[in-house]
């Protein structure tokens, strides 16, 4: 049976990247958010946020809707059902890892 640190190393990097995890966590707490909101929330630059969103969209975890509000372009982002399940599962794994690393000792191997 792998120890908690091996499990930690095996986490899905697509989701576990700090910026992408922040984006997915935010989207899991709402129905949808726009690009400006995620920009302020994550503190990323325009380019970095676009790049992270493109990777998440490519993986089928988020869905982007590009539209105009008046004359201003506005991108609305929401989790897909797969994305929601993925981020929920990821936080469950992290919670359980946090507990097991706390209880872990070299003797328990």
């Amino acid at each position: 049976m792998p120890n908690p640190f091996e499990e930690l190393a095996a986490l899905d990097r697509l989701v576990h990247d700090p910026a992408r995890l922040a984006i997915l966590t935010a989207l899991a707490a709402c129905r949808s958010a726009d690009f400006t909101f995620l920009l302020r929330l994550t503190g990323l630059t325009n380019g970095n946020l676009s790049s992270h969103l493109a990777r998440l969209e490519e993986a089928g975890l988020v869905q982007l809707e590009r539209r105009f509000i008046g004359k201003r372009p506005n991108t609305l982002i929401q989790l897909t059902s797969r994305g929601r399940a993925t981020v929920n599962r990821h936080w469950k794994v992290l919670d359980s890892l946090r507990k097991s690393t706390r209880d872990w000792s070299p003797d328990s191997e």
Partner: protein
Amino acid sequence: MQDQRRIQFVVTSFSYLQGLTAVPMGLALALAAVWANSLTRRAGLNDVLIISAAVIGLMLIAWRFSRYYEHEFGRALATPEARWLDLFTSVAGGLLALGAFWLDVAKSLPFSAVGLMCALSLLIVFLRAAWLATGRYLLYYPVLAALGILISLLPLIGLPGWWTTLGFRSQLLGVCTAMGLLFVVAGIWGHVLLIRLLPRAGRAQDA
């Protein structure tokens, strides 16, 4: 790594953190109470038109503030669960507020029902945030609610007629002014909190 609870809090309480929109509402409540208190005769059409224009002006300012938030901080649409919770508390709160207003006007109570309702509404904002994510950022809400409860119960705890000392003709007018000011404080505090939680400067990070 971003703190999960902080993110969930900002997203789920985003509309409540747009505090500047609550400032004109609080001012409108306080202004209407002070205006009613200043009347020495029955209000005429001109009086009503002037106060209505002032209140509508404040509502327009609140709308402008909501546009500012949308432009500066973007949009986050609440989950259906949070929307239902807000709808239920708004409708129930509205009905209870009407009942409280009737009680304060029709009965001579040793406390203010309207004040208690306002304090309850502040407490509900805190409980909502605590239920959906965390209440630790909104601890000033229970403090303001406690202040509201204290003001509402002043006649019961040995200060009957406190409003006359401040120049108000009735408890209701004094309480409405105080509650309006509490909403203003909550609004300004919420705005400062939002600015601190969502700082403007972006930081470079590897994609």
